[in-house]
């Protein structure tokens, strides 16, 4: 069984079908690009993999475990997720947010400082998130997603709001995580800027995977 497996997964939001019979397997150590136009189902697919959205039909398996089953809760600790929001509390500082997330995920505080320094958040670590620029919020959200060195990292448009230097640093970080054996799934438009060399490209259209192959 692959590390990440989806079998005939569909997701309906009322009359709208966001995902249609998606079947997918991903092995460890892969940098995968989810491409597609707006509304193609990229974010929904990431949310299903991140256990944020329960599929209407089909089966999801992460590292051999169903993350939606009562016994599968622990596997959520191996998944890092960054959606289109930073998913942080505006009235808490970055350090307080990261400390809270570390406590939720059972991650040691040393990891928090390592990631904060890797993403160069040191100067703003004690500032409240609502006072920060969009770029810093995005980096803080990334730091939050990276806590605990997740084996599966799900990123939705991670380069949005980052300057070119931060974007390149993120690209290098994703490649390094892939080389360390993690699965990195990135939803991004073709126009998102300088994208890394992906191992695989999945193209979604109207909730279906219409192309799956090596990235050009």
């Amino acid at each position: 069984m692959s590390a990440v497996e989806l079998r005939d997964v569909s997701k309906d939001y009322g009359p709208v079908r966001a995902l249609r019979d998606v079947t997918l397997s991903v092995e460890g150590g892969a940098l995968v690009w989810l491409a597609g136009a707006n509304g193609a189902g990229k974010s929904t697919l990431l949310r299903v993999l991140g256990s944020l959205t329960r599929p209407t039909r089909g089966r999801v398996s992460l590292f051999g475990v169903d993350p939606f089953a009562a016994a599968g809760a622990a596997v959520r600790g191996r998944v890092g997720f960054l959606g289109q929001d930073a998913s942080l509390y505006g009235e808490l500082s970055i350090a307080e947010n990261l400390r809270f997330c570390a406590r939720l995920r059972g991650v040691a505080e040393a990891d928090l400082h390592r990631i904060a320094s890797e993403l160069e958040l040191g100067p703003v670590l004690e500032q409240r998130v609502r006072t920060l620029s969009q770029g810093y919020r995005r980096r803080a959200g990334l730091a939050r997603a990276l806590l605990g060195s997740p084996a599966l990292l799900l990123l939705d448009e991670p380069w949005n709001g980052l300057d070119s230097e931060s974007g390149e640093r993120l690209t290098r970080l994703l490649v390094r995580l892939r080389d360390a054996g993690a699965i990195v799934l990135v939803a991004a438009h073709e126009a998102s800027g300088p994208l890394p060399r992906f191992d695989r490209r999945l193209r979604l259209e109207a909730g279906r995977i219409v192309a799956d192959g090596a990235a050009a």
Partner: protein
Amino acid sequence: MSGASVARAVFAKDLLLDFRTRDRLGHMAVFALLVVALLSIVVPASRTERLAWSPALLWVVLLFTSLLGLARSFQSETEGGALALLVQAPVDRGWVFLGKAGANVVALVGVELWTGLLFSVFLDVDWSGAWRAALGAGLLGALGLASLGTLLSAMSVAVRFREFLLPVLLFPLVLPVLVLASSITGAALAERPVPALWWGVFALYDWVFVSLGYLVFDYVLED
């Protein structure tokens, strides 16, 4: 990763946010002050009548004041997309419910103490002989309101008319809290013994809704 440590982390974070922003607590405190001040004008002046009306009025004021705070239980999560953090907690999400409901209990007990003080000042209610039973009713009432309120507030997070939906769902379900708490408070103020059955039913009601919240929160938090 233990569920209890997740519940403690959520509890501590909610209290920190409550004390740092003071929005929720401040709004509830001012609302209670205004309503009790108005009541002091319209409630009959005789001490006997005030004593007879006070328990029911106290709990109606507490219900409406609590609603104001409970409706904002998930505001900090919805504003920054932070709900995803709670949904992704690698434990049974019932523990997240316990943490959030616990923080709501603390906030509601604070509001109850404040409102009790306002009743003393504006309506001459004397708690000296009744404080033990009133505190017991307050704790059980806060637990009942907080458990139901947290659950229903989470259910209405993604709903357009949540300010309308929450009271519509909450009021019929918390009727037993209102009846039991005001009966116990009334008996205590009149220096009558409180039947043990009332305490038992109250504790059972709370236990049912805390357990229900714990069990269904897993589904409530997901899309």
